């Protein structure tokens, strides 16, 4: 596997870790942050961070994988 792809996959695992496997640890109301119960705050934060994570994965692939033919 190419180096950039490996980095991208590691980043891609983050939403699964935070939004699936961490759920038993964050299943509570307190502390209420910005008016949101903690569980909802946690979920919303990681959903909003996902585009940033994927963008970083995109940049890493571009940086470490050789450009493919036929791509602009």
């Amino acid at each position, binding site marked *: 596997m190419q180096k950039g792809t490996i980095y991208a996959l590691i980043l891609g695992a983050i*939403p*699964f870790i935070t939004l699936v496997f961490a759920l038993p640890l964050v*299943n509570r109301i307190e502390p*209420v942050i910005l*008016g949101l119960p903690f569980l909802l705050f946690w979920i919303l934060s990681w*959903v909003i961070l996902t585009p940033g994570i994927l963008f970083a994965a995109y940049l890493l692939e571009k940086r470490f994988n050789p450009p493919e033919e036929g791509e602009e």
Partner: protein
Amino acid sequence: MNPALIIIFGVIIFSSLLGIYAGRRVKMNLEEWTVGGRRFGVILIWLLMAGEIYTTFTFLGASGWAYSKGAPTFYILIYGALAYTVSFFILPVIWKVGKKYGLHTQPDFFVKRYKSRYLGVLVALIGVIFIIPYLQLQLTGVGLIVEEASNHSIDSRLAMLISFVLTCVFVYTSGIRGTAWVAIIKDIMMIVAVAVVGIGVPIIYFGGFGNMFKALIAQRPNFLVFPGATTNMDVLWVMSTLLLTGLGFYMWPHVFGSAFSAKSAKTLKRNAIIMPFYQIPVLLVFMVGFTAVLVIPGLKNGDFAFLTLVNKTYHSWFMGFVGAAGAVTAMVPSSILILFASTLLAKNVYQAGFNPKASEEEVIRLSRFMVLVIAFLALLFALFFPTALVNLLLIGYDGISQFFPGVVLGLFWRRVTRAGVLWGLATGIALVIFLVFGGWDPFLGMNAGFVALVANMVVTVVISLLKKSSLKSKSSKLKT
């Protein structure tokens, strides 16, 4: 005539005209009709995907679950983000294979990868079987929302009939381009409606969402943590459901197929990055459901929470706007469901299964004819047998997700075989039916569809490994 009616019909008719206009000056063949000539850039792909994914029932359902179940509704906010992460890795590869071999549909992929026309026929039939109840659901959604929004001055059956006939017309003339263009209106109206209501009602009744949550937590302390108001949707259920829906999402034939209309693999990568932003409206919809818990408690059907609260709070012309947004929000996904179900039947069942010599012209003609057949079927069920397909709908996601091993192993693992995929798929579907209808869902606290997917994956891998010759034979992996 009340203002709500004028707004609803104005929007439905204008949208359809735009849909028809979208296909002007394009000479329709299968490549143009089904995958838009593979020319869609980031914006059109985003509109198309967001347009087909976020249906009327995403919104009625998300607010309904927030109202009646509490925290389990949060899964609707999460699974999209997971699905888009998966799409970042698989859609560009699927697109490259599609471009190289001229694929139009999901069964085309199975035919090419596993060198079996009949596997393609099977995948196509399973796809269509699950699409029709989904389509019926959209129809029911239009009827319900328009009847409610017009204050019962339009009968739901009339609303279904009108919006469906118009949808058929623009699918017939413009194909996937029609869907993408109408999605522009749908996305704008829907976001405006959801933002106004989602931000508005907590402020109107509580002065802000912070106070609303305070009141809700005081009244029902466990409502906003899993399992909420349910007894069987605890953390394990949420986790397994998320894995199932996150992985299975792009296995829906119409979502899978739309990926082919992108102009490059890179377009799909960029699209995956921006898609999660579209989840934010879902949060606003939750706010409406939660506010409704406090303001209008005791509704029998939670799916009506959104509309009932809007009706109570806003002027009737805004109700018309919401009704119109709801109607186009059903028409856009319907159009793409009809389009792909038709292509599946014409190309992957008729041509592949019965008449391999059929010319491409014959296939496109039959596809367009099938538009009418499929829409008529869905309408028939919605009007006369509304409960006949409920069971199919119940297992739709569970069933469709069983394509995942065949697609993803097919893309990335050389040794996976046709027999492996066939047995895995059969195991998965059989297990879904057995568990769900045998009363075993959730199974040990987990979503039954997820249990079936794991079994399917194991069977696919084991049977593929049993066949030694695949090591010797030349790589059957598709080159990209």
